[in-house]
């Protein structure tokens, strides 16, 4: 129990205290600002003025401390970066702050902004008419009359960010930093992908997915290809390289190679109904997950597939007769 508590009967109020060294914005006094300049200045929070109910902040740009009551704090942003704080003992020279622009840079003379003209179709728009008129009324004028070039801002055009158009681009850049091959030819150059493909082939053989036989004369085997992905962990770091062999099911014919294509799914209302009943009766709920779902199904139809690229062959007419379902087959979800 603190003396303060004894005296006043409640704990002191700490809500006015702020984190030392955090970024804050001090509202400039009236004589330092006008309508067109910045209204506040970025400072580092130092502490509290001893004699007044005010905050003490350091303004590195003006090289002075400011004492003000009108301060907005960004408590989670330290003003000095951590590497710079380690060199703080030798703080004879304060870091340079390039981000605070001087008024001269912001108001360049001769920088003219123009209203954008609506881009209408020139064949139907009215803009075409005046260019014809002088040519018809005054034939002395050269017909290839060049209009003066339109003054246009050199500022790069950017769609507004508030609609979020830039977000998908930002997401794909993290993935594209690791190049993903699109075909076997590209992938076999890299060892990581080769290992991934070998692992997949071993898994398929362990599962006894196919028998290798010589091709019967009347069948036309379907092709297969490799699909490569990079699996990322939830924090965005690399997890593993993954190669998956898929059959080219788009060459399969309905009624001949496959008949039913569907996957068993439950209606969402049914899911909610079961959960509601389980909740009301206080039943236990367990969850299970099938690994490599698509590879469990046994195939009823006879499907022949060309040997996957990268598998060594002895005879040229050998094909895989599939025993089990493979990703890419039309009937794979049914199994």
């Amino acid at each position, binding site marked *: 129990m603190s003396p303060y508590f004894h005296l006043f009967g409640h704990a002191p109020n700490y809500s006015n205290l702020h984190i030392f060294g955090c970024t804050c914005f001090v509202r400039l006094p009236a004589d330092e600002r006008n309508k067109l300049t910045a209204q506040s200045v970025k400072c580092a929070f130092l502490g509290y003025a001893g004699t007044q109910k005010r905050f003490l902040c350091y303004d590195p740009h003006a090289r002075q401390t400011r004492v003000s009551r009108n301060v907005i704090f960004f408590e989670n942003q330290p003003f000095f970066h951590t590497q710079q704080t380690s060199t703080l003992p030798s703080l004879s020279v304060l870091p340079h702050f390039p981000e605070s622009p001087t008024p001269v840079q912001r108001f360049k003379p001769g920088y003219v902004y123009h209203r954008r003209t609506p881009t209408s179709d020139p064949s139907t728009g009215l803009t075409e008419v005046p260019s014809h008129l002088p040519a018809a009324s005054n034939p002395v004028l050269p017909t290839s009359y060049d209009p003066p070039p339109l003054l246009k801002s050199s500022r790069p055009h950017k769609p507004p960010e508030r609609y979020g158009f830039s977000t998908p681009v930002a997401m794909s850049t993290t993935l594209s930093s690791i190049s993903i091959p699109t075909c076997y030819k590209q992938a076999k150059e890299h060892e990581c992908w080769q290992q991934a493909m070998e692992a997949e082939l071993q898994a398929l053989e362990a599962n006894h997915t196919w028998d290798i036989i010589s091709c019967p004369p009347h069948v036309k085997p379907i092709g297969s290809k490799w699909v490569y992905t990079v699996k990322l962990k939830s924090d965005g770091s690399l997890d593993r390289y993954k190669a998956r062999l898929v059959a080219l099911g788009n060459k399969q014919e309905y009624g001949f190679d496959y008949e039913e294509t569907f996957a068993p799914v439950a209606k969402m209302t049914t899911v909610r109904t079961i959960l509601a009943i389980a909740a009301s009766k*206080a*039943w236990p709920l367990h969850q299970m997950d099938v690994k490599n779902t698509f590879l469990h199904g046994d195939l009823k139809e006879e499907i022949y597939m060309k040997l996957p690229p990268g598998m060594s062959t002895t005879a040229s007419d050998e094909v895989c007769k599939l025993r089990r379902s493979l990703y890419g087959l039309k009937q794979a979800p049914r199994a």
Partner: protein
Amino acid sequence: MVFLLVYVDDIIITGNDIGLITKLQHMLHSTFQMKDLGHLTYFLGLEVHSRDHGLFLNQHKYIQDLIELAGLKDATAVDTPMEVNVKYRKDEGEPLPDPFLYRQLVGSLIYLTITRPDISYAVHIASKFMQAPRHLHFIAVRRIIRYLIGSPTRGLFFPTQSTLNLTSYSDADWAGCPDTMKSITSWCIFLGDALISWKCKKQDCVSKSSTEAEYRAMFAACSEIVWLRGLIFEFGFPPTDPTPLHGDNTSAIQIAANPVYHERTKHIDVDCHYIREAFTRGVITLPHVNTDLQIADAFTKALTRQRHKFLSSKLMLLDLPASI
């Protein structure tokens, strides 16, 4: 009694016989390569939270991802998913240069309605313009997402000890679609206190009167009731009482309950006879409900803040974990 719910490769097992459940799990393990994930916590993007008072279902992570995808992380929250008294038409505003993001967002929002019936109507409106979205429609979608920012943990609550009787509400918004003048069907069905099924859908033909629109909504709700009664019967809980189907339109109720054949309702005979039959067989009853207590109202129009809050609580939508 053990139930197995299969969704391609995800399986939920529940039932009142714990010994049988473990036996079934062992059997599945020996037949397939299974991964036992223990107690149900995460299923198809739904987060299931088990509490003493009941089960709580939400899609918190999905909402966070959606907000990030929309680039609205720093946007301010709003209290309702849609502005009141605004009709969105298909040819208003500038067309979006790239409708990809719009479609992606609306598609995600449709999946989100699994646990968020409160945005159902707003998503229904937004999804009408998937074909050719315009800027005004995009603003509506952004508003839905800003609404989600304010309530990211909201979800459905299934209380324990609730009865297994169905209760339902149906409503219609006559000529609710300004482009086609078709009406909007809406209904919701509760199992005990838990909301399990609802719909917000544009009707497929134009209705001449609000009674007719209301009647078609009742017809749609009635079909769902018949199916749900069958489903619950299969789970071993045969329904004893007829299911009340609350409506706020007395003339629609009169048409169903009263076998007088009226000239103005000649053309809606199929729906008419279906509901009449269900009524006489004792599958449904048709009590009248005051418009103020009409819960299906949440699926027919954009609501004011107080009304939205009131109906959300009636739909058993709660915020985790503060209110439990």
